[in-house]
């Protein structure tokens, strides 16, 4: 049997549940949304800590922690629903991946902000 040099592998079969293949762009959108939300929790905590009276670092940690809890619930619930029911599941998977990556990165940024707030109040002399 000979094979034409122009032969290309056939497309893989569509999944049985009728879903479209995942589009990378939609997954990157989800990753960007989740990473942006992580940054937002830090930014909101920082702004609240700067505008409110009292110990800035404690205020920042409290607001950022509440934000992280809300974000964790929202990202995992919305991500799972969109991954299962979405057109191709790309945005949902992207949100879950982005949330997990943000979880790895954000604590050190949060720690840095916290130290800078303590420093700005003169506690390091």
């Amino acid at each position, binding site marked *: 049997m000979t094979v034409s040099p122009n032969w290309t592998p056939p497309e893989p079969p569509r999944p049985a549940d009728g879903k479209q293949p*995942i589009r990378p762009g939609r997954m990157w959108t989800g990753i960007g949304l989740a990473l942006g939300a992580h940054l937002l929790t830090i930014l909101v905590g920082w702004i609240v800590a700067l505008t409110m009276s009292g110990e800035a670092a404690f205020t920042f940690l409290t607001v950022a922690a509440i934000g*992280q809890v809300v974000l964790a619930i929202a990202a995992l619930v919305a991500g799972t629903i969109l991954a299962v029911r979405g057109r*191709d599941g790309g945005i949902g*998977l992207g949100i879950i991946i982005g*949330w*997990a990556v943000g979880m790895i990165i954000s604590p*050190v940024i949060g720690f*840095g902000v916290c130290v800078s707030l303590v420093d700005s109040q003169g506690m390091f002399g």
Partner: protein
Amino acid sequence: MAPGNALVHDLFTGLGILVAAGVFVLQKRYWKPDDRIWIVVAGALVGGALLGRLGTWVQHFDLRQNASLAEQWLYGNRSILSGLVGAYFGALLAKRLCGYRAKTGDMFAPAVAIGMAVGRVGCLLTELPGTPTGGGWGVTTWDGVPRHPSFAYEIAFQLAAFVVLLRLRGRVDLFATYLVGYAMFRFAVEFVRGNEVVFAGLTRPQLFLLALAPLAVWRIGRWVRNREDREARDDGKPELDPARAAEAG
């Protein structure tokens, strides 16, 4: 750690993740064309992120000395070892949930190795590197004492592991090989890392690795049995055990 150091540390952590993602995607030719691989990736990342953050939670034998869950979440140490274990079980769980049967460890192993090499540069630049040394290769930090550059040792290990894993592809179970290699290296480097010694002259990461040793033995044993079954099939001999042969397939 000063705020600038935190950003440097984070920058390299982020770069490490990006490089690992790039290497993972570059290995696309080894994938079966199946979108469920992204569910496995998500499972590995979620498991790794959760256990990486909570892995050091129960670190005192006297449980009253351990932080509350909220304190651990906010201020607790992060651990790459528990993160790797979390990623492993996260990927396994995701595979079960979405019914993905193909092996994925061979795609993750080189990406994890090169990602760790980049990420550890941040640790090298911002953390106390190791125990004091009289050797000429010691690095001097803010306290003026020459210390073992234990993170540099680890970067060298991860780079070597990356090259070796690429060369061994198809011959061994890459992920198990990487995990066992890293566990042995980490156990050894802990003696100069400078972490707190808590029991029998060993640090917490060393005790953690000892506790996980049976899991590594089981994983390698399973790979060896599967390979024997495959070879038996290839030689036309009767299969050793139909149940195990089905598992191997």
